[in-house]
């Protein structure tokens, strides 16, 4: 096969990632455990929102990582298109459902957070709206993979879509922020960025680390699965052809 990169060999990748997997799993459990402990038990409740602010420890990392995963997907797609690295589109394909799940977690926790404070299950604030749109981008991307019979064609089409989406994402964000300031709905998230009290920063960082390790673990597992599936498909094709020797459409 042309354009073989040293690390593109799936066997090597599988070997290295399998070795990393147990460590990443331990790290994930550690981060989540420590983050949940400090977040739930060892940090102060918000003076206004009470204990419900603790949802922030799940909501904020999920929301920011939902964007992070899209970036990973876009970078992998660019590598797949430009350098035809065979593992790149496997990585992109495997990341998408994880990113979609992160957006769902962010949306659900956003709703749970808003309900006791504002009395409604949904509020059209800038962040939640952007996360919802990102969910649609993920679903569209996943749908495009399924739409093609030819896996290679699906990979390249999805890569183009991911890049087009990535390029448009800042524009969409900007326009949603603008729309938000025009219409001034209630905002759920007060604690954000550098205004967070330092006591809250540590559990937030730990949860962030946990989500990151979760992404890495699930990504590796999904990539292994995808690699095995492709091998099976290829072997099945070969078996069908040599056994039947049936002429197909030119």
């Amino acid at each position, binding site marked *: 096969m042309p354009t073989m990169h040293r690390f593109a060999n799936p066997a090597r990748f599988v070997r290295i990632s399998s070795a990393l997997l147990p460590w990443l799993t331990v790290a994930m459990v550690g981060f989540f455990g420590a983050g949940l402990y400090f977040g739930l038990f060892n940090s102060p409740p918000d003076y206004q929102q009470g204990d419900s602010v603790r949802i922030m420890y799940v909501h904020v990392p999920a929301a920011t990582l939902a964007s992070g995963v899209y970036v990973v997907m876009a970078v992998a797609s660019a590598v797949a298109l430009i350098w035809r690295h065979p593992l790149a589109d496997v990585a992109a394909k495997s990341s998408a459902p994880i990113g979609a799940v992160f957006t769902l977690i962010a949306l659900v926790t956003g709703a749970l957070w808003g309900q006791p404070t504002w009395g409604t299950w949904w509020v059209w604030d800038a962040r939640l709206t952007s996360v919802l749109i990102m969910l649609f981008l993920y679903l569209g991307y996943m749908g495009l993979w399924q739409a093609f019979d030819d896996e290679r064609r699906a990979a390249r*089409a999805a890569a183009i879509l991911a890049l087009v989406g990535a390029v448009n994402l800042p524009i*969409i964000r900007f326009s949603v922020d603008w729309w938000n300031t025009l219409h001034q709905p209630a905002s759920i998230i007060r604690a954000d960025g550098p205004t967070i009290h330092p006591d809250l920063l540590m559990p937030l960082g730990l949860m962030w680390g946990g989500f990151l390790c979760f992404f890495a673990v699930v990504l590796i597992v999904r990539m292994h699965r995808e690699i095995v599936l492709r091998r099976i498909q290829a072997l099945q094709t070969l078996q069908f052809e040599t056994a039947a020797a049936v002429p197909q459409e030119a």
Partner: protein
Amino acid sequence: MLEFWALVRRDLLLARRQGSATTSVAVFFVLTVTLFPLGIGPESSLLARVAGGVIWVAALLATMLSLDRVYQSDFEDGSLDLIALGPLPLELVALAKTFAHWLVTGLLLVVLSPVLGILMQLDSAAFGTLVVAMALGTPALSLIGGIGAALTVSVKRGGVLLSLLILPLYIPVLIFGVGAVDAAADGITARPHLLMLGAILLFSLVLSPVASALALRLNLE
């Protein structure tokens, strides 16, 4: 360059001969807008408040439903192969075809928008801005939609998937388009919104031919 205009003329000729497509887009546009007063009641001030949003959403949907005309039939009868093998670079092919698509659908929406403004009791101060915003926004819709059409041209019954892919990308045009109309209706300047629409149009003039050509090349393999 001659081949570029030859392609635009060809698509326009085919659209004219095939007839019904243009009128159905127009009818759909008006029909969709008509549904809203039926749905939310005929009270003038309520309609006027949502007029901008309703007209723009209807324009988005009308554009989206007509997008398969850009490449589909040429793909199915083998013409797209031959066009791609012609001297015109595929990026210019995409530009020519989306331009022809806009001339057949978007331009019509621009012309019809004042009528819909009347139906939705839009404040008369906003009519001019509505037309300008539509004139800037509908080409962007054709361009961005063209990318989706190119990606899904080889997918059977890809219409729904196309909608799913394109609608999120339409959101900025929607937001600034409605923003312009609402600003004009409120008596304040719509310039920043119109400038943003112009910027999005310029951006898609560059992105769309490049991305569409990549997608077409992929689907023609």
